[in-house]
Every structure is written in C-alpha cells, then in structure tokens.
C-alpha cells in the first residue's frame, strides 16, 4: 500500500514545519489570488493593478467579501456551467439586505439584465447590474436546500460531492456573524429561468461559455456568492463549473450617469442610497 504520508517527513516539529512550508508554491484551479493583481484570469479591459478581489470559486464552493461603495464586481462563467447565487447586505447595517420581490416588482421587470438594480427592503439600491453578456439569470427559484439537494443528488453533506446552496450561504454568512435567519431569497446568475403563460418555470440553462455580469455597489456591501447547480438544473449529476470573481474600485451610480434617471423608480432608489450615504459621510 502506498500512502501520501510516504511523501511527507513530519516526525518532528521542525520537519513538519519544513514540510508545510514546502507546499506554498503549489497552485489550484480554484483559489483566491493574493494580491488580486496576481490574478491569472484578469478579464479583458480590466486594469490588473486596480483589482481588489480576484478569485476562482470551486464548483460547489462559495466566497464572500465586504466591498466599498462604488466597487465594481464582475462575475465570469468561463465554461457556461457556473451558477452564481448571490445575496448582498448593507455592510453597515446588515438588517438591510437584498429583497428579491422588490428587486423585480419595483423595476416592473422579472428578468435581470444591464441597468437592473438589486434593491433592499428599505427602498434603496444596494447594487446595479452595469453590464451583462448572459441574460440567463433567475429571480424566482432562489438556491437549493439540503432537502432539495438530497432528493435530487442523494446527499447534501457539506464535505461531500453535492453540497446545497443554502448550506454554503450559511457558512459564508457565519463568517460575517450572520445566521440562517439573515438569509433572504437569493438571485442567481448564468442559469436562466423563464415564466410560461401558465406560470410554468422553464429552465433556460446558460448563454454558453464566456458570459459575464458586472455590478456596482451602491452602498458598502457584504457580498455572499455560492456556486452550486441551479435548483431547476435538469442534470442528474452535479456538474456546476468554476466561477471567476474580480472587483475593483469605482463610483456608485451618481447624478449625470444616464442610469441615474433611467426610470423614475430607480432614480428614487439612487436618491435614497445617496441620502443614506451622505448622512453617514461615505
């Protein structure tokens, strides 16, 4: 029997330390890139030196970050098989969080695309989608639970081959002192759903490899991102692909930007976000 232990000399503290340190040069398909400017997968047109977040999220994995107001957040689906489930919170008062119902009701539009705000339940824009080459997103189905995941794949064990979206959100939330009660319905990017005239939810799948969406943070945000199959994914197997995340500093949506007055509703949402930000001297 050959063992991985045979490759390691760990019988003393100094040997174990040397063994651990010798692993540092390894890489993985799925990892955060630090500093972010060292990202090997910087999207075309993005300034490497400006990056504040660069990461490839593993299939079934998750990531999370607190980002400043104005930050540009770009999600890339290199294989056409990622599914980015996203929840955002006002980082200063996490009671304020994504409200999916308001996010579709107030813009009079269920299907996410460029110009669509992600609204909180407090009448403010938390983020805005600034560009979108996919158009295949979902605001109806949320993410998977242990219950639905076990029914579909046979297991939702956190250490196993088919973790659920909610269990991953719980881990991400815990890293910010948040718990299950803090998890609202999420939106998902890169795997679309359409509502048929009779109400049937039809799974669109992705727009293919290489799509991306970009958002801007209208307030300081806690961002939680989970990369698991869409709840309506028809595949019997658990075949979600890697998800690439980059972010860099920028400006929130401000007067003078055509998006600021794109609709009367979104205009008032931005006015509310700015009102909040100015009072806090952000």
């Amino acid at each position, binding site marked *: 029997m050959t063992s991985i232990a045979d490759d390691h000399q760990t019988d003393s503290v100094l040997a174990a330390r040397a063994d651990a340190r010798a692993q540092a040069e390894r890489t993985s398909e799925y990892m955060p890139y630090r500093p972010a400017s060292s990202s090997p997968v910087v999207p075309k047109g993005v300034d490497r030196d400006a990056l504040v977040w660069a990461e490839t999220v593993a299939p079934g994995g998750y990531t999370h970050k607190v980002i400043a107001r104005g930050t540009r957040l770009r999600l890339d689906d290199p294989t056409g098989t990622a599914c980015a489930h996203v929840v955002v919170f006002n980082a200063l008062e996490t009671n304020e969080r994504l409200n999916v119902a308001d996010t579709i009701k107030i813009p009079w539009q269920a299907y996410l695309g460029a110009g669509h705000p992600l609204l909180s339940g407090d009448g403010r824009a938390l983020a805005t989608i600034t560009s979108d080459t996919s158009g295949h997103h979902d605001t109806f189905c949320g993410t998977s639970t242990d219950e639905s995941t076990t029914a579909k794949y046979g297991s939702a*064990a*956190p250490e196993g081959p088919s973790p659920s979206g909610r269990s991953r959100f719980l881990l991400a939330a815990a890293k910010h002192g948040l718990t299950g009660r803090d998890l609202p319905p999420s939106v998902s990017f890169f795997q679309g759903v359409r509502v048929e005239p009779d109400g049937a939810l039809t799974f669109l799948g992705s727009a293919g490899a290489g799509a991306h969406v970009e958002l801007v943070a209208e307030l300081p945000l806690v961002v939680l991102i989970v990369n698991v199959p869409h709840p309506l994914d028809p595949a019997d197997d658990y075949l979600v692909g890697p998800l690439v995340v980059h972010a860099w500093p920028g400006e929130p949506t401000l007067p003078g930007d055509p998006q600021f007055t794109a609709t009367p509703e979104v205009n008032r949402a931005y006015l509310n976000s700015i009102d909040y930000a100015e009072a806090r001297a952000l």
Partner: protein
Amino acid sequence: MSTSTSTTPTSTGTATGTTTHTVAGRALVTTVPVGAHYVDGTTLDPNGPLASGPVVLDQTVAPLAPWSARLLAGQTLTIVDVGGNQSADFLVYNAHDTDERYSAPDTLAWQGNAYLREGSVLRSNLGRPLMTVTGNEIDRQDTIGGACSKESNTLRYGFHTEHQHGCRENFLAEAARHGLGARDLVSNINWFMNVPVEPDGALGIVDGMSAPGKRVAIRAEMDVLVIVSNCPQMNNPCNDFNCTPLRMLVTDPLRETGPDNA
C-alpha cells in the same frame, strides 16, 4: 457514501475535472473537488466501547464529515480511531445553556498539564466539569492545536488550499443545526492528534501516536452537546494523510433511554 476517483481535478489547465461517487446507491458524477478518503488497503479496526453498560448509540462518522449528539449526564462517549491517527476535532457545550462551553485554558490550568490523559476533566468557561476522560489508549491527547480551517490553511500551506474543506466548516455546519454560529466556536480538543511543545517552545502537529482501533472514553458530567469534525486535513500529518472513519459509541450504565442523536 463511498468514493472512487475516476478523474482527479488537476492544478493546471482549464478543464474541470470530475469524480464519481456512490451516493444513495447510485453513481453521482460531480465537479466538486471533494477531499480525499482513505486508500484501499488501509487497516480499519472498529473495536468496541471503552466503558461498561449497554450501548445506546453506535454511529460511524464518515471521513471528512461532521457529527453531533446530546449526551445525558452519566453517559460515556467512546471515540474509536478506526483507521489510526485520525484527528477527531471535538467541542462540548452544556446542553441546556450553550453559553457554557468547553474551555481549553480552564481545563489545562486546572490540571496543571498541557496534554489530556485519563483522568483529565474537561472544564467549561465557568470552570465546571463538562466531561471526564475515563479511558485513553494513547500517550497523550491534544487541546492546544485547535481546528483546521480553509482560511488558516492559506496561512499554513498557501492560497491554493483555500477551497479545501476544513474542520471549521464542519463545526459551523453542525453548529448551525443547533442554533449556534461562529461566535460559539472556541479552542477545541483534537482526539488522536499529536502536538508536542518542545523545550524551546516550538510546537506543531507531528506524526501521531495512535493506531487502528485505539480509543478514548469521555463521561458526561452534565447533559452535554458534543460536536465533532472528522478532520479532512490532507496537508499535515494530523490524519496521517489518509482520512478514515471514526466510530462513536455511547454507553449508559444507568438508563435505558438513549441520547438524542442530533
């Protein structure tokens, strides 16, 4: 759940590797980079309880998995290191008031020794006995090495390990099932892990002193909630680079009723 690897995700290239797992009686193909289980040919000894009385709970914790159970005062938990040198990361709480939880410093200061052995009393943050080590088949047990996490793995081994499953993930996942969260995780015990402190203060995880079938027995001194992570770590010797199952046996010399398995 058993695992067989057909393709290992590689560290180069853009293709997403898949592995095939037997889950609920069928083959599940997944892109998730699941951690490694023990290799074929590993010696496994499930042994039996290290305490008297009828067995009221007998469960196997799969490699890499979390586990929890409530024990009534007087019941004894035997943890069997089935495959040898498999770290059982362990937290314990007062079942009726989880603000009272295991305290490594209280435990060590009270006994005046840095290692746990037979007779060690696992003290709470209020200084009270939560459990007592009533049987132990390895030289010493650890409570100074703490749990691994995907975050601390990046410090110890590099950023490439960030996506790997860790004990803190298991603790958080299992704690959430009991309404507990990140604020409830404290310095833990690592049964079967070896963390010497050398004369000059150097300390670290080194090759273990356990073997297949070795056991520790811990008696509940009050009603307790126990949370365990069967450590998934593959970057250091805490699991002998070969993650194996743990067997959890609860014996109760006094009662016919079993613990609430959580």
